[in-house]
């Protein structure tokens, strides 16, 4: 159920038209450019760029907020540690606890990068169905074995989510207390059982695939060639990304 909720993306995404390979390249350029930014003066611009991309995608704000929750917890931990421990310039002091300038600035820059990268990555992932994304990665040089594993794993994750859920319900109906340390054994047995079952299922899957010619001459499904607008969008992204990096390196 968790998995299904996680994969559900809102509809009406205006960037889903963008040719996947170019979109992948363009948005990844932006993401990695963001990762290099540590000059405080560029941070607002970076956040504005990220928000503009999100705006263009027409995804609802609530979706982004839901995506920020899980990794946000980690950031929260750093928010407590960094400003109090890093740096020499004390901004404010309350007894032994001192708020330090360098740590606070460090936290600000981490938070800004974190937010901007996740915002753009969310746009990329929410505007592209998983199989399409994997195929695009494949045509950009990812090894076939990884691509096949990604698609297969994706296909069977949902089945295993259901199997695991049912197995846990069945165990709880037989009074297993999954909330205690002793549940390690029960969980280990459930995982072991799923491994054994999957082992056998994989044999059947392979037989079924072979019967349908897996490993025979296979033509690649070609995609429509990218158009002028696709390249223009890529150019905008690359220019923006380059602009950020060049500005920080040479002008600040």
């Amino acid at each position: 159920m968790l998995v299904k909720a996680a994969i559900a993306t809102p509809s009406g995404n205006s960037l889903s038209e963008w040719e996947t390979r170019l979109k992948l390249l363009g948005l990844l350029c932006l993401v990695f450019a963001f990762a290099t930014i540590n000059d405080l003066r560029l941070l607002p611009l970076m956040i504005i760029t990220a928000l503009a991309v999100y705006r263009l995608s027409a995804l609802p704000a609530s979706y982004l907020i839901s995506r920020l929750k899980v990794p946000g917890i980690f950031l929260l931990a750093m928010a407590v540690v960094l400003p109090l421990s890093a740096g020499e310039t004390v901004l404010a002091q309350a007894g032994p606890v001192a708020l330090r300038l360098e740590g606070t600035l460090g936290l600000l820059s981490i938070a800004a990068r974190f937010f901007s990268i996740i915002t753009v990555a969310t746009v990329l992932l929410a505007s592209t169905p998983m199989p399409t994304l994997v195929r695009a990665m494949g045509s950009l040089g990812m090894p076939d074995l990884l691509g096949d594993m990604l698609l297969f794993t994706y296909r069977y994750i949902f089945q295993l989510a259901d199997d695991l859920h049912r197995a846990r319900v069945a165990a709880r109906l037989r009074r297993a207390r999954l909330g205690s340390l002793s549940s390690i054994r029960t969980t280990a047995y459930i995982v072991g059982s799923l491994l054994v079952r999957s082992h056998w299922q994989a044999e059947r899957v392979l037989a079924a695939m072979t019967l349908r010619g897996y490993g025979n001459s296979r033509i690649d499904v070609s995609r429509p060639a990218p158009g002028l607008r696709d390249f223009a969008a890529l150019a905008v992204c690359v220019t923006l990304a380059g602009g950020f990096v060049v500005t920080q390196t040479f002008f600040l």
Partner: protein
Amino acid sequence: MTKTLRASGVSFGYAEERQALDDVSFSVNSAERVGIIGPNGAGKTTLFMLICGVIAPAAGTLEVFGRPVEPGSFQPEVGMVFHHTNDQLICPTVREDIAFGPQNTGLSEDEVRDRVNSVASATGITALLDRTPHELSSGEQRLVAITGILAMMPRLLILDEPTSDLDMRYRRRLIGMLNDMEGHTILVASHDLEFVLETCGRVLFLDEGRVQADGEAAVVMSDKELMEAHGLEVPHSLVAQWHRHVGPEGCE
């Protein structure tokens, strides 16, 4: 008299879907056997999950043995055998699997051992005790799963599609077993209407989340109009019976 099971106005809906159950009311007496029939998606498994307390109704109340079902707190006197028995068998050996439930209820080691031996001999699977559940045939697995549930001494036994994957021999054995279990209250969901006819005196006909009929098994299932309106067919044995009792065309 206290009913074994009483559902009043029970509704339940999964996200984004029409109601899986919609204002369902019925009650079951002690030692009664009720077949739950209806097409796929009629709400049979949902009903079972509610009775077991795995999920909570959106509206209405459910009482088992006179006490309201508290979602999340599972009652050892309700035993459920899953449709996919694979999800229920998690231990390395059949013996351990059958002992799993009794162990969780806090019985002593000796009591558990006696319990395992007695239920295993009652269901005739003593010879399988040292095998691993994963290498058994589907018929054997089903018997082991039932034995594991019976080991918890449930007073209400719920079976979800118990004959799917069973061959005639195991099906016949299961029919004999259920008919020998006097005193148990039993609910059976099944597409195998002949099986329901042989094991249940009463049927509850669900479709589109509502009770379409509730009454004597042979009477409800002989109602050609009702059955076909909901995508079922009158079982052949009832057609045969009709011929036997009323006589074929040429005889009158």
